[in-house]
């Protein structure tokens, strides 16, 4: 068989896959997804579980260990049949949470912690890389079989290299063609479905040939099986259970399985079909494993690699076409695994590692959504290339060794470390982020120490002595016999310990830590997903799409503009009416139109929502968030402006209120002044007219003349007081500070008061020894206050023998001078107004005397404020009592 021909056939096959994927993408873009998204395609896509290792290795496995290979199929079968409710929960959660990968799902469950996302991503990369290397190995070994029947070697590396390149190209083209809002890849899924059919068909064809072509029918075949050493293999119970459990966990936890099972799922109900159809597929693909192994062992020369029986049996019988078909089957199995795994890993890497880093580098400026999409696309492409480079690198470094053959189960065991956190997250609300992280790290470390690193063989990573005696001679730390647990198969041993450590840490730390509010929320969402979410939705594009798009566009563009756009496009398409077909051209035009109003990311997400009918990807959400942030920023500014305006209005209102109040006060004041001025003027005019009329007794004449004189003086004093108060109130007063003995000031005031109120009956008691203080203040003004208080006492004290006591007390920096008379004091209800203008109390005695117009205390209060002191009424004394408080050295402004 010519190698060139094989390469040509492979290339043709790959070309065919490209075409299939391309056609599927086209149909999807045209909105015809009904067939692409059928339960059958879904079930076939699940067959990425059966990789190149399963395709070739199962026979080898059977040849070496008998029926044990069945566990690899038994685990998934049990999960799909017995645990399909768990898968349904997983799918429902995945869809409602818009999970893009298993890392995303876990990070989402545990409070949207990206740290956990990164952790799972790293574990997935470590667990998957050897597996990708394994696929490359299977292809290069297969090529080598055709080439020389020998082993890989240098030409194996070449094959692996070009295979890796080809797979990278295919995955980049169909895996990151566009940022699909649903993280769905119609082309890829379709190609994988085709590959699923090819690999099953190829294995069945080889099987049929072996049974009927070589063994001579079912009867002889069964006899041959009974006679073969395979049937004599004893199945070890512990290993059997562990392997079954392991493959069951793997089908849930493997990144590629999550991709096809959850992310690419378009309808939850497909799972019902898959729950019986996928086990059937597994049964069919494993049907002829034993016959091929038995016939291979008996008819091939001893030493032939049983892993290659699928190829070498047809070749040895000269069935080249069958051999090529088998090759294509193995090729399909290997490539489908690599493609889906690299898509899954690249999604994780880009969403949990690259994007957070890129976004944090962009700190500050709100990024343009287009940038985000582009960065996501490029980071996905780079991640795919990196994943394949890692796989290839691993393949080259491991030298295609026998260790690689074991890597399948080891890889399963690594990925299975996600299982406790995943299941705990789905069913236990008490599971916390810290618990999940502790379990993952602990389990993974045990796995690496007890299984992964020793698998490279003695003296590769761990020295032989360390494997035998433990590090530093600590025997309980022997990697393959931890804590003295010897006599177990290394895989069983590692699984046992890693799961014990993983689950133990997960539960213990979860119980010991408190979940954050976000974790609680997500925990409830996950655990009770069927209560929270509505019945399964059907995610398929419908005929009513254009109508929905129009309704949406009208809201954003306005009814007229939207209808015009739709009508115009419909006319272009040659359709009658206003509803065009939702072609890709039209959708992108609509997207551009919408993005003018709501931003590109939002527009994309909205159209996807109507067109695809489903969720929105992380990147789109980030873009939407960007735009929303900008709108929020803008509305915050508007809000601030509006608040400002409201505050201004409030201030204006207050100012107006104050003005109104002032106006009322002014009216009251004017009315008071009018009264105070008109009253003496009335007397003056009336008596002037009486005097002018003549015919008066001389005594009467002089009495009336005196009244006129008194009332004129009262008027003058009133005007003086008004002016004085005005000056004091408006701060235009110029103070004249002087140093003077307090006693002297009081003496002057007493003399002045006596002079004004001639015939004053008031007797004044003072304690002159306390008055021997020097004050530095405007003593003229101070005297004015004292005069006012003494005159008030003289006027208003209603005692038969009126007395006023003036007592001075000095307190540190201040002095207090109390003026207390022996009268009945001021009624309580007037206390609050006595210092107001014109608060002269209605009092017969006051009315009988001339002088005070009710401004005296108002003026005194103003003066004391200017002098840095105060004046107050003491309500709890026997008579009228005022207290003047002032600093020894007054502080006042110098004008």
């Amino acid at each position: 068989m010519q190698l060139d021909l094989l390469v040509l056939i492979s290339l043709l096959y790959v070309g065919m896959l490209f075409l299939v994927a391309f056609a599927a993408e086209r149909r999807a873009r045209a909105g015809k997804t009904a067939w692409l998204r059928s339960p059958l395609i879904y079930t076939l896509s699940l067959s990425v579980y059966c990789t190149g290792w399963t395709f070739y290795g199962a026979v080898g496995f059977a040849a070496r260990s008998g029926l044990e290979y069945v566990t690899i199929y038994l685990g998934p079968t049990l999960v799909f049949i017995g645990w399909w409710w768990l898968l349904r929960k997983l799918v429902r959660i995945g869809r409602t949470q818009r999970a893009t990968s298993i890392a995303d799902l876990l990070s989402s469950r545990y409070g949207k912690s990206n740290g956990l996302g990164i952790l799972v991503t790293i574990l997935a990369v470590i667990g998957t890389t050897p597996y990708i290397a394994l696929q490359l190995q299977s292809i290069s070994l297969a090529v080598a079989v055709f080439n020389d029947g020998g082993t890989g070697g240098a030409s194996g590396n070449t094959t692996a290299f070009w295979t890796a390149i080809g797979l990278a190209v295919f995955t980049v083209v169909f895996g990151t063609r566009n940022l699909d809002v649903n993280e769905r890849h119609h082309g890829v899924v379709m190609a994988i479905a085709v590959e699923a059919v090819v690999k099953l068909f190829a294995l069945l064809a080889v099987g049929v040939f072996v049974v009927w072509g070589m063994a001579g029918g079912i009867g002889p075949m069964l006899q041959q099986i009974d006679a073969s050493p395979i049937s004599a293999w004893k199945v070890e119970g512990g290993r059997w259970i562990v392997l079954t459990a392991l493959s069951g966990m793997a089908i849930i936890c493997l990144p590629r399985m999550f991709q096809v099972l959850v992310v690419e799922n378009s309808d939850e109900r497909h799972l019902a079909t898959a729950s019986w159809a996928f086990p059937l597929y597994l049964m069919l693909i494993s049907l002829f494993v034993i016959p091929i192994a038995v016939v291979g062992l008996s008819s091939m020369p001893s030493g032939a690699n049983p892993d290659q029986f699928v190829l070498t049996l047809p070749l040895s019988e000269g069935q080249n076409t069958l051999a090529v078909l088998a090759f294509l089957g193995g090729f399909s199995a290997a490539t489908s695994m690599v493609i889906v795994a690299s898509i899954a890993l690249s999604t994780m890497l880009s969403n949990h590692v690259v994007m957070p880093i890129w976004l944090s580098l962009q700190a500050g400026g709100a990024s343009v959504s287009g940038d985000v999409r582009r960065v996501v696309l490029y980071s996905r492409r780079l991640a795919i290339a990196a994943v394949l480079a890692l796989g290839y690198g691993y393949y080259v470094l491991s030298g295609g060794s026998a260790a690689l053959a074991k890597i399948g189960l080891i890889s399963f065991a690594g990925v299975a470390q996600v299982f406790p956190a995943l299941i705990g997250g789905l069913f236990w609300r008490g599971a916390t982020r810290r618990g999940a992280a502790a379990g993952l790290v602990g389990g993974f470390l045990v796995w690496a120490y007890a299984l992964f690193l020793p698998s490279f063989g003695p003296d590769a990573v761990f020295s032989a002595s360390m494997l035998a005696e433990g590090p530093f001679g600590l025997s309980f730390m022997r990697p393959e016999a931890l804590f003295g647990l010897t006599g177990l198969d290394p895989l069983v041993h590692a699984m046992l310990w890693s799961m014990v450590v993983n689950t133990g840490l997960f539960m213990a730390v979860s119980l010991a830590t408190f979940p954050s509010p976000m974790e609680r929320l997500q925990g409830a969402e996950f655990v009770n997903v069927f209560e929270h979410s509505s019945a399964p939705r059907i995610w398929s594009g419908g005929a009513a799409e254009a109508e929905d798009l129009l309704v949406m566009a009208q809201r954003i563009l306005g009814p007229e503009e939207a209808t015009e756009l739709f009508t115009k496009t419909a006319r272009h398409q040659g359709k009658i009416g206003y509803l065009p077909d939702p072609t890709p051209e039209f959708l992108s035009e609509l997207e551009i139109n919408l993005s003018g109003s709501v931003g590109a990311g939002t527009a994309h997400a909205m159209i996807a929502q109507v067109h695809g009918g489903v969720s929105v990807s992380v990147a789109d959400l980030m873009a939407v968030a960007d735009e929303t942030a900008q709108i929020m920023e803008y509305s915050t500014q508007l809000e601030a402006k509006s608040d400002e305006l409201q505050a201004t209005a409030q201030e204006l209102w207050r100012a107006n209120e104050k003005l109104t109040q002032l106006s009322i006060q002014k009216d009251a004041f004017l009315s008071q002044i009018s009264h105070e001025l008109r009253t003496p003027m009335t007397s003056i005019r009336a008596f002037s007219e009486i005097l002018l009329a003549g015919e008066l007794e001389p005594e009467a004449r002089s009495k009336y003349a005196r009244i006129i004189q008194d009332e004129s003086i009262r008027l003058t004093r009133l005007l003086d007081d008004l002016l004085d108060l005005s000056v004091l109130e408006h701060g235009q007063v110029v103070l004249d500070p002087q140093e003077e003995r307090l006693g002297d000031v009081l003496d002057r005031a007493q003399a002045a008061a006596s002079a004004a109120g001639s015939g004053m009956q008031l007797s004044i008691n003072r304690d002159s020894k306390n008055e021997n203080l020097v004050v530095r203040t405007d003593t003229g003004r101070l005297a004015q206050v004292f005069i006012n208080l003494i005159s008030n006492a003289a006027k208003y004290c209603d005692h038969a023998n009126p007395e006023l006591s003036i007592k001075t007390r000095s307190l540190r920096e201040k002095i207090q001078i109390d003026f207390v008379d022996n009268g009945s004091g001021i009624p309580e209800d007037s206390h609050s107004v006595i210092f107001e203008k014109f608060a002269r109390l209605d009092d017969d005695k006051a009315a009988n005397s001339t002088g005070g117009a009710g401004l005296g205390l108002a003026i005194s209060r103003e003066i004391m404020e200017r002098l840095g002191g105060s004046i107050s009424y003491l309500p709890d004394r026997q008579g009228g009592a005022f207290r003047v408080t002032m600093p020894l050295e007054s502080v006042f402004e110098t004008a």
Partner: protein
Amino acid sequence: MPKSVLLIEDEPNIIEAIGFILSRAGYQVISHGDGTTALDAVTRETPDMLILDLMLPGRGGLDILRDLRSASATKDLPVMMLTARGQKHDRDQAEHLGVTAFMTKPFANQEVLQQVQTLIGDA
């Protein structure tokens, strides 16, 4: 018998002046200086007319007028109000309450006399 005028006013000089003017014209003038007891004084003195100051200690002139107008004995009693406040608002209110005459201080003596004569006739 001379006609009597009850003067309710708290300013002694004005009592003196009006008392002088009216008694010289032959009227009997009685004065009362407190708002709270003004109604009692009206009941006691049964004057022919009332001269009522607007601002009084204890009770304002407008309140007194309102009470006078609501009592049957005094609802037709001629009342002349005097005010030194000089605000239109006071006059409006007094007229609304049924004042007979309204005069602002300071006044011409002759005017007061004429008003009294108009309201109750010559003494």
